[in-house]
């Protein structure tokens, strides 16, 4: 097989002399059918058909089409008409026609055909290039898509992993919180179960304690229908028990899941221990509270500034309140005593006596304040105990008073006797001196003073004598206590009217029979009234428009009468009160009765087997409470 050199233009046809100047290569028309390996893509063929039959020409053109569909063809054929040219151009890519070979026109035509071929080739190359580039682009795109797909797949996977681990952390966190909140082991199991169901599709969770191995054995029988995971629980390196977790058959626990569940198992014993301790503490607390509340005297726990933190029942009882938390963080002294007291921590422990008035009754308390050295509760610093010593004080006062009276009784009878006569003589002599003196004499007023003083002395002595005589009184029968009181008030009226003091009665309508000495009882009431009048006068001296009032209330109760004589005078201070029954003590600067008044009243009431107590508050008033026995 011969290989012809590649040429741009081949002439298919006889090598006529007219081609010689054109320097084209030649192919014999009969060659082409055998030479199948003719160069392909020959740019241009000149087919000289003048010597060929139409059929042969058609054959050659088809052959060219077949061999090289890019080739341009110039047909030299004098037989071709215009209509045939159109179909030849359409069917066989014939670029141009010549009737005869001519050096000029054929060459020109061939060069144009070459140019056309070159342009078409360029177009084709371009198209090919674009196609190639498109292919490359598509490949790159596909590769990119593939990478993106793989990347997002792995992203999704790590996101899922991240989510799972986040969920697990959340679950673990929630588990730990819920475990801490649980109030029983069953609740703990339920909490863990609830949370693990969500993340691990758990069927049930159980805690089995060490020593209850039979329960563990029973639970492990569930392996027949479930996957069972048993995790050891240890506390302080000792066996504590087991955490048993079950889930559906064929969903084995993976290593990462086991690791996660292990973390829960690690904290469980601590929480269970906390529960046990909590129960013990709760029991202790209940015991403590029961004891605290059972104490009969008021106890309060306060912070470092004496603000109330805890109080027992007796505390509320003493205040006449229902048990509540309303008092918490109020000052203990203001709450309990109704006044402010300053205490310094360095003065502790303190033992202090205080009195408070609630309603009309006065209570005495001994307050013990102790500092709590090591308080578990940092808010509690002091324990305050209030011991009610009202009764004790009352008894003590009465004891003191009766011993005072007894003492006074014995001394007074002897002294009074001794003093009575000399005093009488003194008074006589003073009166004699006075008679001898001119009233204009310088000494006259001094002597008058002496006379007054002597009169006072005599009065005191007589009072003392009467005082000691009281014990020998003969009782009169069938007296009416109301009458005695009215008599006493009548005598006081001189003073009360002139000072515009209002006296108010509240007596029962029926008789109030009593046994005793009319005059002495009347004297006792007069003295009390006198005391009230003077107390109100003291008020009036400060405020002339003060509305002074005395109220006398008499009430029968059981076998007694309760008599209250109250005033709204200046009242007594604490120190005055304790001395009120002391003979010769008086708050009055110039005492008309030399302080014996209340002592005498006390003595008279005592002699009548009654009692007399004074309740007084400075600037508020005084109230005398008297009890006397009813006549049988």
């Amino acid at each position, binding site marked *: 097989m011969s290989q012809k050199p590649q040429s741009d233009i081949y002439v298919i046809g006889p090598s006529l002399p007219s081609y010689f100047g054109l320097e084209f290569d030649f192919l014999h028309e009969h060659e082409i059918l055998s030479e199948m390996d003719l160069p392909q893509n020959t740019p241009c063929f000149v087919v000289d058909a003048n010597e060929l039959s139409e059929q042969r020409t058609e054959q050659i053109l088809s052959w060219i089409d077949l061999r090289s569909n890019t080739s341009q063809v110039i047909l030299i054929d004098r037989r071709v008409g215009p209509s045939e040219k159109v179909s030849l151009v359409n069917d066989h890519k014939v670029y141009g026609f010549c009737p005869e070979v001519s050096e000029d026109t054929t060459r020109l035509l061939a060069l144009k055909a070459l140019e056309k071929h070159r342009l078409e080739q360029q177009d084709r190359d371009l198209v090919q290039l674009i196609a190639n580039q498109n292919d490359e682009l598509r490949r790159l795109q596909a590769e990119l898509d593939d990478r993106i797909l793989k990347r997002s797949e792995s992203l999704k996977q790590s996101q899922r992993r991240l989510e799972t681990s986040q969920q697990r952390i959340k679950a673990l966190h929630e588990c730990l919180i819920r475990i801490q909140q649980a109030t029983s*082991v069953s609740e703990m199991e339920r909490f863990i179960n609830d949370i693990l169901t969500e993340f691990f599709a758990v069927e049930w969770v159980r805690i089995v*304690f060490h020593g*209850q191995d039979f*329960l563990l054995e029973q*639970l492990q*029988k*569930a392996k027949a229908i*479930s996957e069972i995971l048993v995790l050891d629980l240890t506390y302080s390196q000792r066996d504590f028990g087991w955490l048993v977790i079950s889930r559906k058959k064929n969903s084995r626990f993976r290593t990462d899941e086991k690791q996660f569940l292990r973390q829960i198992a690690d904290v469980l014993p601590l929480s269970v221990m906390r529960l046990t301790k909590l129960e013990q503490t709760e029991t202790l607390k209940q015991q403590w509270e029961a004891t605290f509340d059972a104490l009969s005297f008021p106890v309060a726990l306060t912070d470092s500034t004496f603000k109330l933190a805890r109080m027992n029942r007796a505390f509320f009882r003493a205040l006449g309140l229902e048990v509540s938390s309303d008092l918490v963080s109020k000052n203990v002294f203001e709450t309990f005593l109704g006044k402010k007291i300053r205490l310094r921590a360095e003065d502790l422990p303190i033992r202090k006596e205080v009195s408070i008035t609630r309603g009309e009754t006065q209570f005495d308390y001994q307050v013990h304040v102790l500092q709590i050295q090591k308080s578990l509760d940092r808010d509690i610093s002091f324990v305050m105990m209030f011991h009610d010593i009202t009764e004790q004080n009352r008894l003590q006062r009465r004891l003191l008073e009766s011993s005072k009276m007894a003492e006074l009784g014995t001394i007074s009878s002897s002294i009074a006797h001794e003093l009575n006569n000399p005093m009488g003589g003194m008074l006589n002599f003073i009166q004699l001196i006075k008679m001898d003196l001119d009233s204009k004499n310088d000494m006259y007023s001094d002597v008058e003073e002496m006379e007054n003083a002597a009169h006072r002395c005599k009065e005191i002595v007589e009072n003392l004598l009467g005082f000691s005589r009281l014990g020998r009184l003969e009782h009169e029968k069938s007296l009416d206590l109301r009458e005695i009181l009215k008599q006493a008030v009548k005598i006081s009226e001189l003073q009360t009217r002139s000072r515009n003091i209002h006296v108010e009665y509240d007596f029962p309508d029926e008789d109030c029979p009593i046994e005793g000495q009319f005059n002495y009882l009347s004297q006792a009431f007069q003295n009390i009234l006198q005391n009230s009048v003077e107390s109100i006068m003291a008020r009036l001296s400060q405020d002339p428009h003060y509305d002074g009032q005395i109220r006398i209330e008499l009430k029968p109760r059981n076998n007694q009468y309760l008599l209250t004589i109250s005033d709204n005078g200046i009242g007594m201070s604490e120190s005055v009160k304790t001395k009120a029954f002391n003979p010769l003590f008086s708050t009055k600067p110039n005492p008309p009765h030399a302080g014996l008044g209340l002592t005498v009243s006390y003595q008279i009431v005592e002699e009548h087997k009654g009692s007399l107590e004074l309740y007084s508050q400075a600037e508020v008033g005084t109230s005398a409470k008297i009890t006397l026995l009813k006549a049988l």
Partner: protein
Amino acid sequence: MYKSIVFDLDDTLLDTRAQLVPPALKEALNALEEKGLSIPFDEALHAFEVGYFPWPKLIEAFAETHDHVLPTEDYVDLFVKKFYERDVLEDIFLHSDVVTLLDQLKSANHLLLLLTAGSTKTQTQKIKKLNLQTWFSTMSIADPNKGESKTQKLKQLLEQHQLTPQETLVVGDRYESEIMAAIELGCPSALIERHAPRSPGPDPTHTLASVTDVWDLVQ
């Protein structure tokens, strides 16, 4: 859909865990303590809740692992007598959502049957106190003392009311008891899930979080 619904009583309709177990357990444990076996209340209750294992088995295990004076069987007998055969003194009640469920089922014309297991005396007391006759056409007690089982009694119920197993839904909280009986007789079953281990066997037809979910099943 279901012509008839058979309910279990204890821990299905009546919350015995809250209302009856604590006092009964306390009394029974006190009786054991008097006879020399001391089991803390909390420990016993927890052990029960671990697997809802039968009490006699638990007491047996406790007796064997704790100090005791009498033979183990004596403690078990004493416990069973005190725990299962005690008089119901408490004011027991059905939760309001259970009452609502029963009312709804009744007014939707479902035939309601009760199937409970236990001592005839105790279960009768419960039934009377709860006025269960308000909703249930027949109330059947399977008394183990008389050797009766729930399977037997369920079969009797089906025959008595001429029911096919397919049209009878059995609802209960114990797989080993009413659910197994239902499976055996071919009845559809609904187990109240209490997240506890159960014996091997075919799954119940339905698993419910609460007895009140029965309403959704029959709709």
